[in-house]
């Protein structure tokens, strides 16, 4: 385990970094900036990062959290990396659909499917 912060659990499986939320209300407004800072710092330290963010257990997502995810996605792209989202509750997935961010992010039902979706480094392009 690389880090076990209060709100994020971050583990590594080979070259893949898996981010999970430890609290179901972790995405409330007051915590979002801190989460964003941790995720951006994580990406900054990786070369061609392959990051999966799992939303298992998360039952709320605000628009500010969406903004943070976009920032992280841009950071990952700037580092020639790939970001995947998974385990999104149907109600929260509706938020992605309404905002059309389901077109911007690569979203998968499970961690396994997210892992399998990563492209090899040689063929890798932005997102």
């Amino acid at each position, binding site marked *: 385990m690389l880090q076990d912060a209060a709100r994020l659990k971050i583990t590594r499986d080979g070259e893949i970094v898996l981010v999970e939320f430890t609290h179901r*209300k972790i995405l*409330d*407004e*007051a915590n979002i900036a801190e989460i964003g800072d941790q995720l951006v710092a994580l990406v900054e330290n990786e070369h061609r990062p392959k990051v999966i963010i799992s939303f298992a257990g998360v*039952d*709320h*997502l*605000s*628009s*500010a959290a*969406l*903004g*943070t995810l*976009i*920032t992280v996605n*841009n950071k990952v792209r700037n580092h020639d990396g790939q970001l995947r989202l998974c385990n999104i509750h149907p*109600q929260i997935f509706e*938020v992605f659909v*309404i*905002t*059309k*961010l389901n*077109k*911007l992010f690569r979203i998968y039902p499970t961690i396994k499917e997210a892992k399998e979706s990563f492209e090899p480094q040689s063929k890798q392009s932005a997102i």
Partner: protein
Amino acid sequence: MGRMRLEKTTAARRPVDPSSTSHGLWCRLEIPSDPKRVEEVEETILSQCQRYSFTDRDLFALKLAIDEAFANAVKHGNRCDCDKHVRIKYRVTPRRADVVVEDDGPGFNPASLPDPTSDQHIECTHGRGILLMRAFMNNVVFSPSGNSVTLTKFNDSIRNKTEHSIAFG
């Protein structure tokens, strides 16, 4: 911690259980302009909705919309000035919940906001709150000055029962 004032106004026509709900009554809260305070507001309102068996989706929608309205009031209306306040007025009945969120700011014109789903703005990191409020609520109305928004959510468990009785008698 600042204060949270609760007042009830407007007599209910026929309260079911005034000791446990605010049936038909408008309740008012005034809280400091601090994003951390939204949770207590949501708990207060959603606990009343739960007593009337609002669906899980209704509760999710209300929490989301109140979150967004409160965040806008604190950030854009009151510019995160803790000396300013957010006023919440709400009424919960078996059929619907109405929540009014008002800030101390000068207001804005919601029609002037860009479409956050457009190709030009899809990667903007802000500007989706009102879109989500409108998508998840049955009605969203801004005051003419724009510093107050009224959110309305109908109780889908009642609506489902009504539709079931119309369909099956």
